């Protein structure tokens, strides 16, 4: 067993915000800068709220489904990247950009 190195690692909220915003943006198809994230305590777990626009193509799932996918991604992928146990996740889609796929 390796010897425990003195000191502790802490992750500031700013870093957590960036991670969750990027993960949610990936699912919503929006640029990471357009999505914002906030974290709060959720009975010892980390509660996350993300807010941003969704970009939907003709073959994309519905906005609600996109939101659900973003929520799952924040909980699993975001939690894994940040190394935290994520509790409640709220996703708010503030705008939608719909691409029909037609080329003029």
């Amino acid at each position, binding site marked *: 067993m390796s010897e425990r190195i003195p000191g*502790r*690692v802490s992750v500031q909220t700013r870093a*957590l915000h960036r991670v969750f915003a990027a993960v949610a943006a990936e699912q919503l198809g929006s640029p990471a800068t357009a999505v914002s994230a906030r974290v709060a305590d959720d009975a*010892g*777990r980390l509660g996350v709220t993300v807010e941003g626009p969704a970009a939907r193509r003709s073959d994309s799932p519905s906005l609600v489904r996109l939101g659900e996918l973003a929520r799952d991604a924040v909980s699993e992928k975001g939690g894994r990247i*940040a190394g*935290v*146990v994520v509790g409640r996740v709220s996703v708010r889609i503030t705008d939608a950009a719909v691409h029909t796929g037609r080329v003029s």
Partner: protein
Amino acid sequence: MSIGRYERMLARRELRRSRSVAVSVALALLALGAVYVGIEGVLAAVQRPALLVAPADAPRAWSAGEPLVLGVAGGALLLGVALVIAALTPGRRARHRVQDERSVILVDDEVLAAAVSRHVSRATGVAPGQVSTALGRRAAEVTVHPTSGHPLDPVRIEELAEAYVAAIHPVPAVRTRTRVSRRGVVAT
């Protein structure tokens, strides 16, 4: 080899509050009372007016229930009760003796509590400000506020605190109880 009678007495002296202040106050008041009685006696002997009550009039003033006499008697009663309480209570200081075969080691409870908090904080990776310990004579209560998203195992913390306190071996023995707060602290 264990510490001897003299060392135990030394430890006892430091673990309990000194009564010297109470004794000094009581003796000073007694001396003032004696001086006053002396002055009244001399004034009565030379047939001069009394300062407060002449010794010959004292029994009559007491039975008549004069406010001054009753006030002095009431004050003396309260002081007496306070001194009896000070004499009979153990007057313990917030300190523990640490078991050692060669020396008398006394540790302030504040220091002991801070050491337990620091140990738990280091071992769990929680920020030092998120762990607090309240130490009484026979019990220590460790409260940990976890960092949100980093759940803690209460059983492990209990074991950590218990093992640490057991290693220090305070006298009297201290039982540990740990509590992991339901509310976490967001990324410190």
